[in-house]
């Protein structure tokens, strides 16, 4: 197999409040022999909030980030669901609108860059599944997670909206106005950027947990929202959404939760105490970033995975 190499867009959180995410991502990539080139030139993606204020500026900045992956001829991988969504939303709009693309490129030309659309953008977890392969991952497991019930928490922006996740050219749900006469053609809700994920029945994290020989917890909240994007202006809303998901996982016997999104992680992990207060119930659940979970099963030293930075302490390590 040709060596796997990607441009890694870390996002801001992995460089600040969740250093353990970057540490564990790099440690797992090294262990699996995947080369990650850090995009140190990249800026913040705007996290859906800059877009509320100045949509065009966010397009230009996100396009610039992609340019740096394109310049190296590499596909981009992300490690934050919101970075992933904002980057592919930019990509989708520029790739489908020549006028918008040239308007953005006019600005990028001021700094000597041009957006071409030649690099794909995926969350790192889908690169592990689709390019590295789950079977190969399973072969590397030295500390199987046999004893653990792991609750997968997917995070909205990896799985919705599915118009960004449909296979190109396929129109999934539409069988014509009010008519099923033409019948059903098997296209399904599929991810265009994030391999094969279906927003109502996502499976990627569950498949990874099983490859690491853990037991995946079946619970309703796995594809629900943690409320992170309203944390500041509507803390009660955010706490209730986070709390509902945490308690759902706990009530279904989860020993821990794993998420591919550092923003979900902040709400589930750092805010666990405040959330417990809001919900009126004790909540004590270790929350791991996906590469931390993978890393533990691969036998990587917990220190190297940054477990010491997690607020909800994983006592089992």
């Amino acid at each position: 197999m040709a060596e796997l190499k990607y441009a890694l867009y870390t996002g801001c959180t992995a460089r600040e409040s969740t250093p353990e995410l970057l540490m564990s991502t790099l440690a797992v990539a090294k262990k699996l022999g995947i080369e990650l080139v850090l995009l140190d030139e990249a800026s913040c993606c705007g996290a859906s909030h800059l877009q509320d204020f100045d949509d065009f500026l966010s397009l230009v900045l996100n396009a610039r980030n992609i340019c740096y992956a394109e310049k190296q001829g590499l596909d981009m991988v992300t490690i934050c669901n919101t970075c992933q969504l904002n980057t592919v939303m930019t990509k989708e709009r520029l790739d489908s609108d020549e006028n918008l693309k040239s308007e953005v490129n006019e600005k990028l030309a001021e700094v000597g860059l041009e957006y071409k659309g030649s690099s794909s953008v995926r969350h790192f977890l889908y690169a592990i599944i689709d390019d590295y392969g789950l079977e190969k991952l399973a072969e590397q497991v030295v500390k199987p997670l046999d004893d653990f019930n792991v609750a997968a928490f997917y995070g909205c922006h990896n799985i919705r909206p599915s118009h960004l996740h449909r296979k190109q050219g396929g129109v999934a749900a539409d069988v014509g106005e009010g008519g099923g006469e033409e019948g059903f053609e098997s296209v399904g809700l599929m991810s265009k950027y994030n391999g094969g994920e279906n927003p109502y029945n996502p499976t990627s994290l569950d498949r990874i947990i099983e490859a690491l020989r853990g037991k995946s917890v079946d619970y309703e909240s796995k594809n629900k929202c943690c409320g992170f994007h309203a944390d500041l202006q509507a803390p009660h809303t955010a706490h209730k959404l986070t709390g509902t998901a945490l308690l759902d996982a706990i009530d279904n016997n989860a020993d821990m939760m794993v998420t591919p999104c550092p923003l979900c992680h902040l709400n589930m992990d750092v805010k666990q105490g405040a959330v417990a207060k809001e919900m009126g119930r004790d909540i004590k659940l270790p929350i791991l970033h996906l590469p931390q979970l993978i890393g533990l099963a691969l036998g990587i030293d917990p220190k190297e995975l940054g477990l010491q930075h997690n607020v909800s302490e994983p006592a089992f390590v």
Partner: protein
Amino acid sequence: MSSERITKKLTFKTFRFNAETDFLPYFKTYEMEVGKDELVLDILNRIKWEFDGSFSYRRSCRHGICGSCSIKVNGKPVLSCKQNVWELVEIFDTDTLLLEPQSRKRVVKDMIIDKKDFWKKHSELKPWLEAEIDEHPKEEIRISPHEAEQLLEADYCIQCGNCYYACPVVEVNEEYFGPAQFAKAYRFNADVRDNAKTERLEKVREMGPGVWDCVKCFECAEACPKDVDPIGKITKLHNQLFEEGLAQDNVATRHAVGFKHSIAKHGLLDEGELVRYSEGTLGVMKHLPEAIAMYRKGKIVMPWNMPKSEKLDEIKTLVKSSSKVKF
């Protein structure tokens, strides 16, 4: 019907409840052979016609336009007359499908819910054209193609409620207007003949009921059977608030604007500074317990250690040249 019709044997676990006679809801299971052309509405009809005449649901046009027949199947909001059953079998990889009303807590009978909160909030945002209309005009009002395009997909909404009952904020915040309501507000705000834009924006900017309480989960975009993309219209309302100078100075607007300040300074987001700028120097105090816990775990970057993007000069140039909005 030809003899070679291919069918699948499916089980429908169906929510049953009559608010007038039942103490608790219960489930009834119906098994049937389902062809590849059958819609969820066909199944609802067959339950009523072949199994139990007392089974209740709303239906009318069967053409995806009246918005009456929406329910949830395995948690997925569907407009019954548009949703193919075999597709659901594939999506959920199962032969058993759960049929339930859009919202259990609002149920009147079986699939029928009380939509009064939906309609009340809908009318509060003036979902109509507010304009002085000359009853005897000399010529028609001319709308350019470009102006008409500004309505985007917002005009396609059929008020089925799929987005509203899929919205997690509606579930925990009773005063929140909801995605369909915002999409409709945008539709009339974008209409050049309309005069109530300011009035609508003054309602949707309120903290609690308004657009700033959106959690950006995209459940609404996913649930919509007409591709209205309600969250896209919520973003447009955010944009209109800034463009029209109607954005108030509050934690939510500062949170949006703070990203620009931070990017212009560091390239990256300065998380600590964003919280301080959004909340204000006093407001930030309520985050102190969390900040201490984070500091102990090495999760807080001190201002003097704040990482910066490489080639920051490029970012500064672009922020200057590409900014289109002021606050």
